[in-house]
């Protein structure tokens, strides 16, 4: 053991024993090192007070999204949990926002349009107004962040500006019954547990993005641990999201342009986090999730989790190994070179579309076999540039106005989805229950595509095609 003085309370990996004070030092140090190493938040060491060389300057706010409706909780139960969470968050003395997931039905259409990254201009602003948002519906992680935030000195000047914008939903309390009903209908129309997870994740992210933008936050911190990311890596590959691993698993997720999602807890094992919470009395609130008590094979995500956990028991380096693999993944150069404005983003997950398939690709092979297995053959356009990549969107399906005349079948929004999201949407019985902002944006893209097709011959081509 390191200090050889105190008595060990915890052992991490093989042979790394810590006493309580050494553990605390190790834990806090790792957090600062992770943030510092990635240099996303702090522009060098300038701006730190010379009195306390280790002060970190940022102003965190905390978000809690109440997903009780999706988990089948009664309003009374949800309210109870919200009050508990509110109590915990109030102790942190940071601004906080409590939102029900039903708020997604009030999101503006613009949420799915990618924000321009303002990093270069507002980097200093980002440092001064950095705010970490945390999903506190997860038990341990929020507590850790809050504890560490309270240890770090914050810049007082920015706090008052943020405080003006605090709003607390708990007193307004109950979301509109109609919205709750819509949310339940949406999730009831999802055939598989796997897809439910994906939808929940997507809606939650959209809502958090909205809160971040509405309140002027440029960064969002989420609490995924090393264990969770290892599981996500495996699940995401199985879900067809392999192309986006650097975004979904990496330290910094910049898919939204203006709001970056970072994962400062990614180097911590769950065991470390839980011990820290326990030993240093960090409050936490437990609330059941959509997969609580679900059987092992109920979803891909659950299965991956069980697999990794069981393997970890016998081979303690499993999680680290999987996690280290993820660190080696980067966005390919070709994707980086392309101008972000022109790169079409997935309607649901905001990742750059991965469906520009060459004829020699695996993706094209799946399309061919899909078409072969359908009763009504769909022609693939090999000559010229197919509109919307596959030649299926503007033909046959009724697009027209939103709502009635459209045949709201899943396939109608496929051209705007990445491969992984297409698989998820296939599990939707109907698109009718999706929030309006998604349907409107889908319409918007379709009309734009149609329009482009009409004026195609008047455009001076630049190898861009119909994007």
């Amino acid at each position, binding site marked *: 053991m390191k200090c050889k003085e105190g008595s*060990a*309370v*915890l*052992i991490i990996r093989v042979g790394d*024993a810590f006493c309580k004070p050494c553990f605390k030092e190790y834990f806090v140090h790792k957090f600062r090192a992770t943030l510092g190493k990635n240099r996303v938040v702090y522009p060098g060491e300038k701006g730190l007070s010379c009195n306390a060389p280790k002060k970190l300057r940022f102003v965190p706010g905390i978000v809690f999204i109440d997903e009780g409706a999706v988990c089948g909780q009664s309003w009374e139960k949800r309210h109870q949990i919200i009050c508990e969470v509110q109590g915990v968050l109030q102790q942190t003395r940071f601004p906080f926002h409590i939102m029900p997931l039903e708020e997604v039905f009030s999101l503006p259409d613009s949420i799915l349009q990618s924000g321009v990254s303002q990093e270069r201009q507002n980097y200093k602003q980002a440092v001064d107004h950095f705010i970490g948002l945390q*999903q506190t519906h*997860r*038990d*341990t*992680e929020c507590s850790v962040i809050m504890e560490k935030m309270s240890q770090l000195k914050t810049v007082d000047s920015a706090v008052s500006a943020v405080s003006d914008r605090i709003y607390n939903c708990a007193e307004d309390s109950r979301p509109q019954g109609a919205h709750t009903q819509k949310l339940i209908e949406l999730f009831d129309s999802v055939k598989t547990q796997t897809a439910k997870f994906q939808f929940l994740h997507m809606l939650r992210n959209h809502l958090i993005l909205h809160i971040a933008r509405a309140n002027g936050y440029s960064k969002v911190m*989420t*609490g*995924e*641990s090393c*264990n*969770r990311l290892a599981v996500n890596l495996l699940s995401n590959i199985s879900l067809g999201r392999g192309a986006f691993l650097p975004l979904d698993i990496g330290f910094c997720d910049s898919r939204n342009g203006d709001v970056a999602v970072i994962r400062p*807890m990614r180097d911590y094992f*769950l*065991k470390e*986090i*839980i*011990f820290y919470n*326990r*030993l240093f009395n960090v409050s936490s609130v*437990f609330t*059941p*999730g959509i997969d*609580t*008590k679900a059987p092992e094979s109920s979803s891909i995500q659950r299965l991956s*989790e069980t697999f990794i*956990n*069981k393997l*970890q*028991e016998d081979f303690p380096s499993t999680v680290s190994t999987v996690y280290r693999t993820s660190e080696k993944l980067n966005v390919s150069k070709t994707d980086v070179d392309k101008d972000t404005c022109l790169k079409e983003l997935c309607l649901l997950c905001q990742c750059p579309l991965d469906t520009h398939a060459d004829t020699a690709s695996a993706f094209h092979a799946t399309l061919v076999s899909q078409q072969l297995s359908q009763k009504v053959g769909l022609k693939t356009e090999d000559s010229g540039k197919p509109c919307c990549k596959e030649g299926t969107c503007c033909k046959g399906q009724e697009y027209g106005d939103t709502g009635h005349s459209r045949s709201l079948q899943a396939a109608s929004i496929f051209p705007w989805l990445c491969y992984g999201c297409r698989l998820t949407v296939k599990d939707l019985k109907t698109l009718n229950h999706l929030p309006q902002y998604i349907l409107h944006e889908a319409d918007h893209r379709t009309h734009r595509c149609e329009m482009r097709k009409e004026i195609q011959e008047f455009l001076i081509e630049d190898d861009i095609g119909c994007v």
Partner: protein
Amino acid sequence: MYHPHLRYAKDVRITHVFIICFRGGAELLFDGVKQHHVTLPSQSNHWDIRQLLVWIKDNLLKDRPELFIQGHTVRPGILVLINDADWELMGELDYQLQDKDNIVFISTLHGG
């Protein structure tokens, strides 16, 4: 003949009182009750964690035993703390319980 040691071994009842806590969602399997004050039936040997788990399964567990115990040990993903220390440092299943020990079972499966 008077053999005080023999009489002592026969007559004394060693009462084991423990506090057992379930956190991190594990409490869902125990009717939501997080803290249990438990008196274990006396026996000649000390209770160890292995036996405690069996006792918990038979007496406290209300729901879905496979979510708490698998085989002879806790399900992967459940941490065990004995007096706020990692059970891996105390011998895990072989640790012999002392009177007034505090055992905490924390599920990590609802964490990020």
